[in-house]
C-alpha cells in the first residue's frame, strides 16, 4: 500500500465522509415513514461511503500525520482533527465493519412499532459519523462532543422499541454509565491539559505531568474508557443494552463502539502521556484477565443468544485490555520491541473482534427475523432452513473460538507469544505474576470455544425445538452481502497475518517508536515476531495442508472403497419416543460450567418437585456486581437524598431561621 501512498488530503476526505454520513441520515428524515426509500437508497449509500472510508484509512495507514482545524467549536478551541496511523487504523476498523453492517441493515430494518425508519436511519448514520469523529478528534472538546454524540445516538437506537419497559431501563442504564464515564474522561483531559493554554492534544503532548498527576490521569482514563468498553465492574450496562438494541446496532456497538474506548486508552496512555509506570500495566493486566474470565463464564450460562454474545464481548474486551496492560509493562521497562509485538496483538484482536462479533450479532438478527425467537431454548436445526446464515455463522463461530487458521487464533497466538517474553522483565514479582495472567487468558480462550460451540450447536444444529421454526426463511440479498463481507474479512485476517501486521506496524512506530516486524525473521508466508526458530506460524500452510489431507483422504476412501450412503432415523437407544425437546437445552449445555463456578453466580433456581401439579424448571443467573456495587450505591444515594430532603419541610419560620443562621455564620466567619 505504501507504493500507492495516501490520497492527497486524506483527512479532508475523512471529514467529508463524516459530513456525508450526517447528510445521508438527515436525508432519511425527509421521508421518515417510507421504509423503501430508507432501506433501498440511504443504507446502501451509507455502505458505499463506509467502503470509501475503509480504502482511505487503509491507504493512509503509514502516511505522516495530517491535521486540520475546523471552523467549528469553542472560540479559543476550534475543532482540531488529525489523521495519524492510530486513528487511521481505527477508521479502517470502523469503515470495514460498518460497511458490512450497513449493507445488512439495508435488508434488515422493518417498519417497527417504535421509532420510524427514517429516524432510525438518522440516528444510525449519526452514530457512525460520531464514531469516526471520535478517532480523528485532536482536541479534548471535539473528542468529548463526538464521544457523547456517539453515546446519545446509540442510546436512541437502543431504545428503538421504547414501548418495552426493559428496553427503556436498559437504555437508561447505558446512558447513565456512559455519562459518568464521560465525566471521568473529561476530568482526565483536565489533568492532562495541565493548565496549558488550550485543550488541543498537541498541548497535552507537550505538557510533562509531575507527581501524582500522571497516575490520576491514567486512572481517570481507565475508569472513563473502561465504562464504555465494559471493563469490570462497569460492564453491567453491556449485557442489558446490547440485546435491547436492534441487531445491526448491537453489532455496531459491540463490534465497533467498544473499540473506540480501546482507542481512547491507547491515545491517552501512549500518545498524550510520556511516562508509563509498570504497576499501571499490572492493574490493567489484572483487570483485563478478571474481566475476560468473568465475561466468558457468564456467557457460558446465558440462554438469550444476544446476551450470550454481549458477555462474550466483555470477554474479548478483557483480553484486549490484558494485552494493553502487558504493553504498558513492556514499555515501562523500555522493552519497546516486545511492547510493539503486544500492541500489535492488541490491535489485531480489536480488528478481529470487530469482524467476527459484528458477523455473529448480524446473524442473530437474521435468526430473530426468521424465527421471532431470541431464547436459545426455542431454536435449533436452522442450518437446514437458513443455510447461508448458518455457514457464514460457522465461520464467525470458529473465528471467535480462536481456532486456526482463522483470525481469532492469530491475535491470541501473538498475545501468548508476548506473554512468553515476560521472563526478560527485570522485576521478579512481575515475572511471577504474568504467567498467572497468561494462564487466565488461556483459560478464557478455551472457555470461549465452549461458549461458541453452545451458541452454534443450539441455534443451528440439531432438530428444531419449536414447530414454527419450520417456516424460518433464509436471509435476504442485502443481508447476505453484509454477512459474506464480514466472513470473508474473518478468513482474510486469518490467513494473511503477515500483511496485516505490516499494515498495522506504523501504529507501533508512532506510539512506541519501535516496530514489530523489524526483527522478525519471517517472510510473506511465515509470521515470525522475533525470529523463525523462536516461534513462527503460517496459517496459509496449515490451511493448505489440512485441506490437502482432507481431500486426499476423501479421494482415497472413495477410490479404494465406495461412497454408498443410506439415511435412516437417528438411533433412539431403544426409547421409541424421541422429540426434539429431548435435546440439550441451552441451560443444559451450560450446566457443567454453572456447577463448577457455582460460587461466582447469583442463581435463583426453581426445581420442580415430584408433587408439582404443573412442574416447571426455572433458573435465572444474576450479575453479582449489582448487589456488590451498584445497589449499595443506589441505596446510599437514596438515603442521602432522604436526609437532604429534610431541609425542605415547609415551615416558613424554619426557612427564615436558615437564612438567619447563614447570615450569622458568615458574619462570624468574616470578622
Amino acid at each position, binding site marked *: 500500500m505504501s507504493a500507492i501512498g495516501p490520497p492527497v488530503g486524506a483527512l479532508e476526505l475523512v471529514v467529508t465522509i463524516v459530513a456525508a454520513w450526517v447528510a445521508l441520515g438527515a436525508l432519511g428524515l425527509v421521508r421518515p415513514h417510507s421504509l423503501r426509500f430508507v432501506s433501498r437508497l440511504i443504507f446502501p449509500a451509507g455502505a458505499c461511503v463506509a467502503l470509501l472510508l475503509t480504502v482511505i484509512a487503509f491507504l493512509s495507514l503509514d502516511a505522516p500525520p495530517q491535521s486540520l482545524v475546523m471552523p467549528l467549536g469553542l472560540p479559543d478551541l476550534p475543532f482540531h482533527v488529525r489523521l495519524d496511523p492510530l486513528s487511521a487504523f481505527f477508521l479502517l476498523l470502523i469503515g470495514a465493519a460498518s460497511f458490512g453492517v450497513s449493507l445488512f441493515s439495508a435488508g434488515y430494518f422493518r417498519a417497527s412499532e417504535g421509532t420510524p425508519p427514517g429516524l432510525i436511519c438518522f440516528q444510525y448514520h449519526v452514530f457512525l459519523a460520531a464514531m469516526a469523529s471520535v478517532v480523528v478528534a485532536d482536541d479534548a472538546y471535539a473528542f468529548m462532543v463526538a464521544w457523547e454524540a456517539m453515546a446519545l445516538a446509540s442510546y436512541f437506537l437502543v431504545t428503538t422499541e421504547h414501548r418495552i419497559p426493559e428496553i427503556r431501563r436498559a437504555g437508561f442504564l447505558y446512558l447513565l454509565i456512559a455519562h459518568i464515564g464521560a465525566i471521568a474522561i473529561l476530568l482526565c483531559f483536565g489533568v492532562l491539559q495541565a493548565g496549558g493554554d488550550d485543550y488541543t492534544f498537541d498541548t497535552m503532548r507537550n505538557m510533562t505531568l509531575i507527581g501524582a498527576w500522571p497516575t490520576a490521569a491514567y486512572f481517570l482514563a481507565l475508569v472513563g474508557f473502561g465504562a464504555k468498553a465494559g471493563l469490570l465492574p462497569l460492564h453491567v450496562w453491556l449485557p442489558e443494552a446490547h440485546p435491547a438494541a436492534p441487531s445491526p446496532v448491537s453489532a455496531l456497538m459491540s463490534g465497533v463502539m467498544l473499540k473506540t474506548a480501546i482507542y481512547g486508552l491507547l491515545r491517552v496512555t501512549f500518545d498524550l502521556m510520556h511516562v508509563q509506570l509498570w504497576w499501571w500495566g499490572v492493574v490493567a493486566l489484572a483487570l483485563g484477565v478478571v474481566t475476560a474470565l468473568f465475561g466468558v463464564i457468564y456467557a457460558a450460562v446465558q440462554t438469550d443468544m444476544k446476551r450470550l454474545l454481549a458477555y462474550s464481548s466483555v470477554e474479548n474486551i478483557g483480553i484486549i485490555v490484558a494485552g494493553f496492560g502487558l504493553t504498558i509493562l513492556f514499555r515501562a521497562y523500555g522493552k519497546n520491541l516486545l511492547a510493539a509485538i503486544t500492541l500489535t496483538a492488541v490491535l489485531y484482536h480489536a480488528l478481529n473482534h470487530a469482524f467476527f462479533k459484528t458477523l455473529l450479532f448480524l446473524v442473530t438478527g437474521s435468526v430473530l427475523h426468521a424465527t421471532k425467537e431470541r431464547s436459545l431454548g426455542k431454536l435449533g436445526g436452522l442450518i437446514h432452513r437458513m443455510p447461508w446464515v448458518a455457514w457464514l455463522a460457522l465461520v464467525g463461530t470458529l473465528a471467535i473460538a480462536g*481456532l*486456526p487458521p482463522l483470525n481469532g487464533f492469530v491475535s491470541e497466538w501473538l498475545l501468548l507469544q508476548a506473554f512468553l517474553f515476560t521472563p526478560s522483565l527485570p522485576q521478579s514479582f512481575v515475572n511471577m505474576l504474568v504467567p498467572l495472567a497468561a*494462564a487466565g487468558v488461556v483459560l478464557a480462550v478455551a472457555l470461549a470455544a465452549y461458549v461458541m460451540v453452545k451458541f452454534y450447536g443450539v441455534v443451528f444444529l440439531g432438530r428444531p425445538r419449536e414447530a414454527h421454526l419450520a417456516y424460518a426463511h433464509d436471509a435476504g440479498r442485502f443481508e447476505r452481502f453484509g454477512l459474506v463481507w464480514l466472513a470473508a474479512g474473518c478468513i482474510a485476517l486469518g490467513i494473511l497475518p503477515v500483511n496485516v501486521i505490516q499494515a498495522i506496524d506504523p501504529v507501533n512506530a508512532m506510539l512506541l517508536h519501535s516496530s514489530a516486524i523489524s526483527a522478525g525473521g519471517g517472510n510473506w508466508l511465515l509470521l515470525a515476531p522475533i525470529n523463525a526458530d523462536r516461534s513462527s506460524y503460517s496459517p496459509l500452510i496449515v490451511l493448505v495442508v489440512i485441506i490437502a489431507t482432507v481431500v486426499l483422504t476423501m479421494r482415497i476412501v472413495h477410490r479404494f472403497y465406495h461412497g454408498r450412503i443410506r439415511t435412516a432415523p437417528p438411533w433412539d437407544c431403544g426409547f421409541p419416543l424421541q422429540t426434539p425437546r429431548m435435546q440439550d437445552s441451552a441451560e443444559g449445555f451450560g450446566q457443567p460450567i454453572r456447577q463448577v463456578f457455582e460460587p461466582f453466580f447469583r442463581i435463583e433456581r426453581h426445581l420442580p418437585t415430584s408433587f408439582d401439579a404443573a412442574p416447571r424448571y426455572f433458573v435465572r443467573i444474576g450479575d453479582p456486581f449489582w448487589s456488590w456495587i451498584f445497589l449499595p450505591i443506589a441505596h446510599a444515594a437514596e438515603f442521602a437524598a432522604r436526609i437532604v430532603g429534610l431541609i425542605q419541610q415547609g415551615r416558613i419560620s424554619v426557612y427564615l431561621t436558615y437564612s438567619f443562621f447563614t447570615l450569622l455564620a458568615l458574619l462570624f466567619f468574616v470578622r
Partner: protein
Amino acid sequence: MTIASFLTQLLELAIAVALAPLLVGWVNMCRAWLQNKSAPSLLLPYRTIRKLFMKDAVVAQSASPIFRTTPYIVFGAMCCAAAIVPSLATDLPFAQAADAIALVGLFALARVFIALAAMDIGTAFGALGARREMFVGFLAEPALLMVLFTASLISGSTSLPTIVDALAHRELAIYPSLAFAGVAFTMVSLAENARIPIDNPSTHLELTMIHEAMVLEYSARHLALLEWASALKLFNYSCIGLALFFPFGIAAAGDWLALIGAAPALIFKLAIGGVALAFIETLSAKLRIFRAPEFLGTAFLLAVLAMLVNLLLGG
C-alpha cells in the same frame, strides 16, 4: 527447506499414521494382560478400521453436511498435528508453519468439530457427549498449553523441534519444573484421550461415556476415520510426552544415521509408554463426571506451578 527434510517430514507423517492403530492395539493388549484377560490381537484396530471402511454408511435424516465432513476434518487436523510433533527427527519443515500453540489450536479445532457434529443429529446423547467433551476440553487445553509453555520457557521457543533440540541435544541439565509439567501432562493426556479416570473407551454406558456418546451416530467409513483419528491423537500425545520428557534418541537436523536409530528408539519408548498407560488405566477407577474438573484443575494448577517453579529456579 531441503528435499531431505521434506522427506523426513513425510516419513514421520507416514509412520505416525501407520503406527497409530498399533499403539492402541498394544495398549489394549497390555491392559488385557494386566487384568488377566486373554489379550486381543495386536492388529485388531487395523481390522476394525478395514471392516468399517467396507460397510455402507448410515446417516441420520436430520444430519447436515457438517456431520459428514467432520470425520475428514478431524482426521486431517490430527495428521497436521502428527506432522508437527517431532517423533523421529527435529528438522520438520511443517513445524515452522505451526508451533506448540498452533498444535493445541489444531487439537481444539478437531474437538470443536466433533462436538458440533455430535450436536448435529439432535439426539440427547450427542449433545450430552458434546457438552462433556467441551467441558473436559476447556480445562485440559489450558493445562496442555501451560505444559508446553514451561518447556518453551526453558528453551526460549515455542516451536516444538527447537524445544526438543534444546532438551535433547544440550548438555544434560535437571529441570525441576519439568517434573511438575510431566505429572500435569500425564493427567491431561489421560483426559484428552478419553481414558480412565475421565472416560472409559471400552464402554457405552450412557451415564459415563463422553467420546463414545459423540460418535454414537457414526458408522462405516466415518466411524473408521474417527477411530483412526483418535488413535492418531493418542499417538501424538505420546510423542509429545516423549519429546518433552524423554527426548533422547530423536535425530537432529540432517543427521541420517541418527534417523536410522531414531525409529527403534521411538518404538521402544512408545511400547514403554503403552505399558505405563495400561498400568494407570488398570490401577485407577473411573471418576464421576463432576470430579473431572477437580482432576483437570489439579493438572492445570500443576502446569502453572511448573511455570512458576521454572521462573523461580531459573528453569
